[in-house]
């Protein structure tokens, strides 16, 4: 995995790790909201591209969040 993608994977997983510990059933929504609020579009695009390439290393919660983000609103 290229270093830049590896870094995005780590950052996304860190966010998921936090929200995973929070109560309720909104964890995936929270991760999605966090990514949408703080990640610049090219970072999100790179993350989506990595998901499309198999999403190696990404936590299930990140994958769920990305799924939500990409749903047409």
């Amino acid at each position, binding site marked *: 995995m290229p270093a*830049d993608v590896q870094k995005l994977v780590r950052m996304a997983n*860190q966010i998921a*790790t*936090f929200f995973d510990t929070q*109560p309720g059933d909104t964890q995936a929504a929270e991760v999605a909201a966090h990514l949408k*609020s703080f*990640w*610049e579009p*090219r970072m999100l695009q790179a993350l989506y591209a990595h998901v499309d390439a198999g999403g190696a290393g990404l936590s299930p919660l990140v994958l769920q969040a990305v799924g939500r983000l990409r749903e047409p609103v």
Partner: protein
Amino acid sequence: MKDFIIPGLDGAPAFSDRDYGTPERHSQKMVTLTIDGFEVSVPEGTSVMRASNTLGITIPKLCATDNMEAWGSCRLCAVEIEGRRGTPASCTTPVTPGMVVHTQTAKLQKLRKGVMELYISDHPLDCLTCAANGDCELQDMAGAVGLRDVRYEAPADGGFQNHFLRKDASGAPNPEWLPKDDSNPYFTYDPAKCIVCSRCVRACEEVQGTFALTIEGRGFDSRVSAGMAGDTFLSSDCVSCGACVQACPTATLQEKSVIELGTPDRKVVTTCAYCGVGCSFEAEMKGDTVVRMTPWKHGKANRGHSCVKGRFAWGYATHKDRILDPMIRESINDPWEVVTWDEAITFAATKLRGIQAKYGVRAIGGITSSRCTNEETFLVQKMIRSVFGNNNTDTCARVCHSPTGYGLGRAFGTSAGTQDFDSVEHTDVVIVIGANPTDGHPVFASRLKKRLRQGAKLIVIDPRRIDLVRSAHIEASHHLPLRPGTNVAVVTALAHVIVTEGLYNEAFIRERCDWDEFLHYAEFVSQGRHSPEAIALLTGVDPQELRAAARLFARGGNGAIYYGLGVTEHSQGSTTVMGIANLAMLTGNIGRPGVGVNPLRGQNNVQGSCDMGSFPHELPGYRHVSQDTTREIFEKLWGAVLDKEPGLRIPNMLDAAVEGTFKGLYVQGEDILQSDPDTKHVSAGLAAMECVIVQDLFLNETANYAHVFLPGSTFLEKDGTFTNAERRINRVRRVMMPKNGYADWEVTMLLANAMGAGWTYTHPSQVMDEIAATTPTFAGVSYEFLEEKGSVQWPCNELHPEGTPIMHVDGFVRGKGRFIVTEYVATEERTGPRFPLLLTTGRILSQYNVGAQTRRTDNVAWHAEDRLEIHPHDAEVRGIKEGDWVRLASRAGETSLRALITDRVSPGVVYTTFHHPDTQANVITTDFSDWATNCPEYKVTAVQVALTNGPSDWQVDYGRQADLSRRILPAAE
């Protein structure tokens, strides 16, 4: 400067310089008395001297001054009180109801004259050539009491004792005469002029709290003495805050700048440009030359006190290294070419627009400065959003307090400290976590220490034994020396004890917080795995100490938490901030004086730069760029369409640069190459860009990779405002014209206009008006308002017309306070066989941040190099002795510096500062960062330390590259 202003009478200014002689008392009970026939009412406990001053009647005095308690030694302030015998000292005599005081009678006149005659008999009469001439209270008092004659003279046969003659009348050396001590770079101590009033000693104790000075000897042998026998001022514990110099009524302690330049002729109130305390100063001027900076007694952050940086370290403003002309170059391998402003701005604007044409609108961005004013920061983000057309704006708060913004925003609903600095005067228990106030925020530390000496209790949570743990007349009740990286575990364990032992404030939580969230949180922290015993191995903290600390905080009265970058600069920085908010809510310590959550901000305007919309996701006033209604406010005023997607943060910009999608950067007053982590990654990012514009006072490290250099201006050269850690908006006032020709806001405007902005500001007050018009929390702020009030703490608007000293008084900004579960997650940065030690970083009193300013002052007398603190055990097993060169290596890089062996750090932990570019501590730090904000994890790096011969190859190469990069072509004639 003499003062004939009578406060309270017509035409008197609100901010009088009058010295009331003794401190203000705050009793609700008023006492009425008569002084010289005039009736006056003052709070109970007030001295006769102060009461008299409130009437405008000045009683002669030498040992009294109103920022310290009365001492009663000079005997000059004697008064007569009807019905009392003798002539009591007015400074030590409290008022009583119906008291009738006479401050001027024949008896008093004679008495005072006699006292002054004795003083002057042991004082040299070289007034005309004395540095204090015109600013000497002894001289003033001799005049005030009508001293005309001194009858005591040295006898011709010698042997008569005095302190000021080098030789007696017989020509023999005077054993009582001592030479001047000019070891301190900023002031001198001349024992010959001392009248032993003890003001310096008391200032050191009461105001600064260092206790470096004492009076040695008794009676005629009494001498002011710094440190131990044989010490000079420089070698003693003196921290050079200058409180003693300010307190000295004679030329005994005198600023060297005054000795050189003479007395100032005007004073301008302004705000210090160093740390986040934001002290108010009077710049004392002659023409456009600063003679000295003295802390302003009406400054509400500092209450008349200062540290060595603010008072003395302003010489960088006129340092020869300052670059005053714009420079450009095509490639960073070329030497710099000096050009006109027009050429430089056109070059920069053309490059930036060219990059956007080629790589897209989002291929450029900028970094606002936390050292520049609110107005300047506002304009930089405005330029990026409305002229560059994207949200790629960030600020150095990214690398310091961004987790504070995120964490407090989630818990309370707003990103700011909850208190004013005065609040500490009402605190009973203080937790200091991840901060070293005596070095980083010295004036706040002095105010805290004063409260601790009055009996407040202290808990320190820090890997190092910082000075607050134990120093003169203060001692922490508990020091929890945790392993770097385990803040969340410790804070959660404190909550565990408070919840499981039933020490929480249920009434507060029920009223002010979401009860269901509390219940869930309580269940979480109550789990056995969060107990102090369960985490002891992980954190290295003694469970009994931790339990005792939790009990003390929960049950000790008003509890306040002060924290710094030791909290935020971690993978879990934001989580710890939320944990701190939890502790404050659990114990009901929010919404009144003496309590609260108080981030100690690093740079002078970190708070302001965050408020002003420097972050890529937030417009001014912490409103997300995705909010249509907020964008509309600015779009309408600015006449531009704003991007609704968040921009790149600093680390993301560098990543994108390395990837090739980010090509141009405007950096105002920041040195990211030295201050940001993982230097190699930063330099790779900068080197990959096609246009880096650096606006700074000096050719800083980042400028090694710049194509355009725009000279910046100092805080002395411009108007504006800074917002300190207590949300206080303070005026910065121009005392001299910009040596580079333009204030920084004007430079930004030149660049913006060259890119088509069409801005027409002629004064920063117009920018503040724009801020007020667009940002609800600043709605009531204007320069006129600040002129009248001195300063104001935001929110300042219709709801809070006088500003907001304390936040969340009747409820949280977000409504109900929110308890957030704080699970400890170990950082991925771990020790192992290759890197067995943990490095943590910090700062030192005499230097500031990357040192660009302080290294260009005489402050280098205290800290000429960064040192590596290492525990004796770790040093011994590596064969390292004090002062040895050691190689410090992490997986990111390596550097060399000299060792300082100390048990301040625990075994397994090493520590250094990052003030010197030769050391480049950040070549060691990694690219790990806070999960929520990307704030870098400066405070935890796994390292190895070994003996070496000198600077590393990397340092040598870096130095060579820096030298090459700083070449400037000689101007063509």
